[in-house]
Every structure is written in structure tokens, then in C-alpha cells.
């Protein structure tokens, strides 16, 4: 069965390591914070200028001067640091964030990502996404494997305008966990109950399928 959004977040959270500074995009990536494994501490970076993002505030704690990159009210955990936007993106662009998790419309076998613009549709802007994909060495892209109409989002070449070129090396879809190496997707894990055949069928880009493709495991 395809993973739920929560399971996708849970699978991504397995990639967290103790002491990681992590930037989580909007959507499924945000949910990752709910599944940080026991015994592991990560520090969340919010690109508007907050390192050490805490929980959402209680009604009493709400403060208009304290928001996250999604413009939601948040809190800062003890030991947080707050800084201006140039400093925040110095951190991101300079490669100091250990892991970035973000959504996408399409990813291709060269590691290109398209996530911000669909020609003909209203363009809202890239926000910090282009800086994040250009800055992080370690990015996990989360997305459904195919569109509602069954069209693959893992392509030979992105069809939409790019967010970044050659910068993605890991993709988690609702069907599989894949890595991008030497111009191909490498199938590393499949969702419980999802067949290799289904993944092959729904992957338009070059796909390397090892002899053994384990199912994902969840605690």
C-alpha cells in the first residue's frame, strides 16, 4: 500500500541523526518533526531567521514577533538563536544545514528538481526553496510517486521550470525510497506491500533495481 503522509514523514525521520540541523519545508516535511526518534535531538532551522524552532505556542504564548517560515506562530526552544535573513541564508547557502526536506512537483534522474512554478498557472514565488536546494548537500525530496492521473513525477528530465539543477540525491515517495546516482534513480526500499513492478511502471526516469529491494520498516 502507498504510504500515508504520516508514514512518509516517519520514514524521512529515520534519516535524522543526533545533532542534525534540519530545515523542513511546508507540507509533509513539516510533519517530520513529529517523528523524531527517541534519543535523537535535532535542531530545526526556519529560514526566516530562527535556529531551534520549538512547538506551536499555547494561546497564552502567541507572539506576533515569533513566526516560522510558513508564517505560523511558533516558539523558540531554550538554546535557540534568532538572526536576520542574510545570516539565515548565509547558513543555508554556506552548507551548514545538515539536512533539508522539501516537496517537489518533479525530480529527474540528473537530480534536477522542479517545485515552484507551473507555466500557465499563477506564480506565487520560490521563497527560500532555490537557496535551500543550492545550499544543502543533503536533501530529501518528498512527493507522491505519480500524479492522480498516474503520470510519473520521477522523470528522465524535468518538464517544469527548475528550482535547482543537479542538487537532489534522495527521494521519498509514497511508494519508494530512492537515491539518485550517476544519472539514474536507484530503488533502495519499497513501501510495505508495494511491488517492484508497480514502482518500475510508475517511474519514467532511468531506474536501477537491485536484486533485493527491502520493504520499509516502521516502529
Amino acid at each position, binding site marked *: 500500500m502507498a504510504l500515508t503522509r504520516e508514514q512518509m514523514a516517519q520514514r524521512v525521520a529515520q534519516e535524522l541523526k543526533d545533532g542534525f540541523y534540519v530545515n523542513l519545508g511546508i507540507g509533509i516535511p513539516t510533519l517530520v518533526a513529529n517523528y523524531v526518534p527517541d534519543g535523537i535531538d535535532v535542531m530545526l532551522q526556519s529560514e526566516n531567521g530562527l535556529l531551534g524552532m520549538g512547538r*506551536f505556542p499555547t494561546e497564552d504564548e502567541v*507572539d506576533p514577533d515569533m*513566526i516560522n517560515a510558513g508564517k505560523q506562530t511558533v516558539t523558540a526552544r531554550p538554546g535557540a538563536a534568532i538572526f*536576520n535573513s542574510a545570516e539565515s541564508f548565509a547558513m543555508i547557502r554556506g552548507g551548514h544545514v545538515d539536512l533539508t526536506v522539501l516537496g517537489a512537483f518533479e525530480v529527474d534522474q540528473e537530480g534536477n528538481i522542479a517545485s515552484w512554478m507551473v507555466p500557465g498557472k499563477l506564480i506565487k514565488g520560490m521563497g527560500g526553496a532555490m537557496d535551500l536546494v543550492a545550499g544543502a548537500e543533503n536533501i530529501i525530496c518528498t512527493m507522491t510517486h505519480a500524479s492522480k492521473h498516474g503520470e510519473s513525477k520521477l522523470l528522465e528530465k524535468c518538464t517544469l521550470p527548475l528550482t535547482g539543477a543537479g542538487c537532489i540525491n534522495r527521494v521519498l515517495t509514497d511508494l519508494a525510497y530512492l537515491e539518485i546516482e550517476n544519472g539514474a534513480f536507484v530503488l533502495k526500499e519499497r513501501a510495505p506491500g508495494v511491488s517492484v513492478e508497480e514502482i518500475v511502471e510508475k517511474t519514467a526516469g532511468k531506474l536501477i533495481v537491485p536484486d533485493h529491494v527491502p520493504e520499509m520498516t516502521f516502529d
Partner: protein
Amino acid sequence: MSGFDKRVYSYEEAMDGIESGMTVVAGGFGLCGIPENLIAEVKRRGVKDLTVISNNCGVDGFGLGLLLEDKQIKRFYASYVGENALFEQQMLNEEIEVILTPQGTLAEKMRAGGAGIPAFYTATGYGTPIGEGKEVREFNGRHYILEEAFHADFAIVKGWKADRYGNVVYRDTAQNFNPLAATCGKITVVEVEEIVEPGELRPDQIHTPGIYVDRIIQGTFEKRIEKRTVREG
């Protein structure tokens, strides 16, 4: 002393000299830390054909969204403009020219303008529509594009506390683009919640040194919240 007393006592005085056709850089992220009263004064004055540089364009009826109502903005540099129906409409009608700029590049272009750096290279946007028409260059095997600095006629900034010399501190994430905007305006106007005596702010804890600031005004703020998100207490 008078030469360093940058306090003004009305918003009219604070925005004195702004004219149609000028470039205005504004601090703020979403509705957080926006110079809301200075924006309202720009609206009141009715100046037109403005080029505005700011991460977002407020919302309908608040923040920079106010300047859309009378079509005061001709060109807008921003990283994200999705919160505003009037903006969308003017963008679709081509009444407003939008130059989308990645958020980090936007911040760095402001800083560069203030810091006498005319241009810098960044990997952000390489290989994307943002890189089109820009110089590409390789350093240590990676591709970068050349981005040029921002300069503005007016910088409008929201601080927390300031002294009369124009030294400013910002509170929490209301800092965002404000100290960067403050550096790249020919005239920099800062509105704050409180003006304190010189010496009350610890010198090594000042975010914006007074040298960047031309006018300081104390105001009151609505501080509207865009996405109130709470958990059970």
C-alpha cells in the same frame, strides 16, 4: 547633539521627500516585523510608480497590500507573493511587474547594496529561470550566477527599540529583512515601539548601528498575525 538626534514626531515628517517613481525597500517577512505605519503613510501620500523591494506584499488591506489599492506599485521584487488576491489580479493584468527573487538572494542583494559590494556570485538559481540572462561562472567545479546589489531611495524599517542616534534592536523573528533593508536606503526611516536613552542599549548588542539610520519615529503597532497556529495549553 542636534546633528545626531534623528527623532521625528510625525509620520508625515518621517516620509518627507518620498516621490512618485522612487524605489522603496521594506523590511518584514509576511506580516511579521513590517513597518506598518510607514507603509500607511506611503499610501496616504498617494505617490505612484513605486518600485518596491520586500520579501512579500502583505495581504489584502494590510501591510504593503495597502499600496495595491490605488495601484501605487509599478514594479515589485519579492520571493513570494501568494497571500494577496489584489496582487494576483494586478499581476495577471500586467499592471504590476514582478521580479521574483530567491529569498536568500533578496537578502544578500540588500546587504550588498549597503556594504559597497556591487555584485556577488551565488549558486542559488543556477540552471533555473532565475539564472537566465545572468552571467554563469565556475568556481571549484561548481556553477554560480552573478547577482547585483539593490539600492533604494527610501528604506522603511520596523525595529523594537532605538535610541535617538538611530541605534536599533529588533525583537525575535521580527528582525528578518529589517537590518538589511536599513543599510541600502539613501534615506532610512525606522519606526520602533520604544525610544530609549543613549547608553541603554548595550553597544555590542545593537543590530543596526545609527550610521545607517536617518530618521527614527516611535509608533504604535497592530502587529496583525497572518497564520495563528496554537497547540492545546
